[in-house]
């Protein structure tokens, strides 16, 4: 049942993407947007007031929206927050292709931005003043929201990767915290031998984790230049990733648990999932999802692919963007700016969000924050360090949500059958190339 549902959702997404393509060819109304909008124009709009609808699941926006309305009493922010992920994008694509019910501001994860910006579904925010904000943000997120001199959204948070590990478990079996992926593999073997119920981490095939690890390993599978695409998992970085992860899979060292399920939270709590390589936003999820493991977990730098290498990558993170069909763009931009670059940032960090802005990342108050959950560790130092070491030349596909949706049919097979990870990646590549061609992209070999 779940499979059919996701198939059909995928079908809808597909239909919508096609429809978007058609509208993109037909209309050139958005040329008028290139005219600069002065700060005065925005202030006038704020004084005049009006309603904006914001589709975003980020929990901290609730307070931000309330503060914003306090500051600009004539503006009403209608925050629609019950949808996330696939369902959110399906609804957004449907609304855009129907031309009705499009929100003024939408939360869009970095990996999905390309899909909307390429089909002209989003407003270029540069004329509103967003282009002057580049230096405020760390390179990873800024690179994700901008394309040349166009800016398709403002970074809301970021996810520089770190290795979260269960110190209690590592101490119990006297295993050192791995600093390279080879050590990680050894730790996985030792741990599973010492306690057959315990695994180094859980993975049943997760597109987000795989792309992040490839990113960290220096692989650049996607080359995007307008409508020209290159897709290849054939570089040295990908090989490094394949070698380590293939062994983890073949030796059954990964817990067969899907991420984000109740089983997964349970595993994080009872010590059967001992580490988690993921984004720096994870602490908030630890606190609410695994309250019983308080004090057991710590953060560490991501293991390096080559000893001494400090390269990191991003995992997750999202922006706020203004759809091209938004009704009240000045107000929409004003809210986006307030939440992601202005006073909203401090509010959001206070509630546990992880910033994408340099000033906050580098501030002593942020870095010296002690995490009760991590036994008083100043974990932000590790995260900020990771953020500074994210290579900024990574790009996702303009149809990454689709590519991610077929991940389990291709790469995912390596986790459940004898298929080699390399073959799985090849199958993913082929399917992505085929889909890209069908969508009208020129695929470079």
């Amino acid at each position: 049942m779940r499979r059919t549902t996701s198939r059909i959702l995928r079908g809808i997404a597909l239909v919508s993407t096609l429809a978007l393509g058609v509208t993109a060819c037909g209309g050139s109304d958005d040329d008028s947007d290139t005219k600069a909008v002065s700060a005065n124009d925005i202030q006038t709009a704020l004084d005049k007031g009006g309603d904006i609808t914001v589709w975003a699941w980020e929990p901290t926006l609730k307070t931000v929206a309330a503060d914003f309305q306090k500051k600009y009493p004539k503006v009403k922010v209608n925050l629609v927050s019950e949808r996330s992920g696939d369902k959110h994008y399906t609804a957004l694509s449907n609304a855009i292709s129907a031309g009705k019910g499009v929100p003024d501001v939408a939360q869009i994860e970095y990996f999905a931005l390309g899909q909307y910006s390429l089909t002209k579904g989003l407003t270029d925010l540069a004329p509103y003043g967003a282009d002057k904000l580049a230096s405020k943000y760390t390179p990873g997120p800024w690179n994700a929201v901008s394309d040349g001199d166009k800016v398709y959204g403002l970074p809301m948070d970021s996810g520089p990767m770190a290795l979260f590990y269960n110190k209690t478990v590592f101490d119990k079996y006297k295993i050192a915290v791995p600093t390279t992926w080879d050590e990680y593999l050894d730790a996985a073997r030792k741990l599973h031998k010492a306690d057959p119920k315990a695994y180094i981490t859980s993975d049943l095939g997760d597109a987000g984790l795989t792309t992040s690890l490839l990113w960290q390993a220096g692989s650049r599978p996607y080359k995007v230049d307008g409508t020209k695409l290159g897709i290849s998992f054939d570089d040295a970085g990908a090989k490094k990733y394949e070698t380590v992860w293939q062994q983890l899979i073949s030796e059954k060292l990964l817990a067969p648990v899907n991420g984000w399920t109740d089983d997964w939270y349970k595993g994080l709590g009872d010590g059967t999932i001992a580490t988690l390589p993921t984004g720096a936003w994870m602490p908030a999820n630890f606190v609410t999802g695994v309250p019983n493991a308080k004090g057991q977990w710590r953060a560490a730098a991501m293991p390096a692919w080559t000893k001494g290498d400090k390269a990191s990558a991003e995992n997750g993170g999202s922006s706020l963007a203004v759809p091209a069909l938004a009704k009240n763009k000045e107000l929409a931009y004003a809210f986006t700016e307030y939440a992601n670059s202005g006073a909203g940032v401090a509010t959001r960090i206070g509630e546990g969000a992880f910033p994408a802005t340099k000033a906050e990342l580098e501030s002593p108050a942020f870095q010296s924050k002690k995490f009760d959950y991590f036994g008083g560790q100043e974990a932000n130092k590790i995260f900020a360090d990771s953020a500074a070491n994210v290579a900024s030349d990574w790009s996702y596909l303009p149809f990454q949500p689709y590519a991610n949706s077929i991940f389990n049919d291709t790469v995912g097979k390596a986790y459940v059958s004898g298929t080699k990870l390399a073959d799985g990646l090849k199958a993913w590549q082929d399917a992505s190339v085929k889909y890209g061609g069908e969508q009208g992209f020129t695929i470079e070999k």
Partner: protein
Amino acid sequence: MSTTVTASPAKNTAPRLRTPRKKHSPGKPKRNVLLTVLMALMVLYTVVPLIWLVINSTKTQAGLADSNGLWFAHDFALWDNIRTTFTYHDGIFGRWLLNTLLYVVLGAGGATLLAVLGGYALAKFQFPGKRAIFAVVIGAVAVPATALAVPTFLMFSKMGLTDTPWAVIIPSLVSPFGLYLMWVFAAEAIPTELLEAARMDGASEVRTFFQVALPLLAPGIVTVLLFTTVATWNNYFLPLIMLKDPDWYPLTLGLSAWSSQAQTIGGDVIFNLVITGSLLTIIPLIAAFLFLQKYWQSGLAAGSVKE
């Protein structure tokens, strides 16, 4: 009346019970072991999830993570969970409950009404094109509602009805299975002679329907109502693609939204509320079942007495 009701099933079943007893004496229940085991497994299969639900709705989020799924945690948080379920996010759960009720009353109620009218007409009136309708109805029964959701969405989007409660209610009004059931039931339960007698006595068609046919159809109506109620109450996919505004969500969609909070960055993980909410969601359905079943049984008996 009530005495005949209880007497008649006893009369019917008595001979059937006697025959097997003769063949298998109580001392030799051998043949039943396999069946008993199968039945026990079936009972386990259906009851265990319910037990799990009841047990786990007494746990906090922390308790869920560090206790066995089939036994209680150290803390008993059922009342607290119920209170939080109704107060979380400004009490949106209550709104979802009312929405679901609205969809059931208008959707399932309307579907039943249409099925009764249509089924009666198809069973008792002769008109050209009846065979074609039969083919269409049978065909419609075979098409799962999920497959129709996407075309329905596109159609409703053109009409500007998406993101309104009508987008959920109108498609729910169509129940091919209910129509078919009423058709078959009406053909059997209403003797054509009875209708002819009513007409001879000068009753109008409307009066014949309401005073002669409708009472005879009661057990069938309750059955169809039960089916459509369950279908509407549990409907997930249609509202999923039709509705964006959480204020119009039914419970199914709302609970799924709560559940997916655990999958978002910085999201509040509230599996305890999802579980408690699920328990609260099925209670009205169980109540409806028990309540309607009573009518269903008495209705069946009432029909049999009249014949």
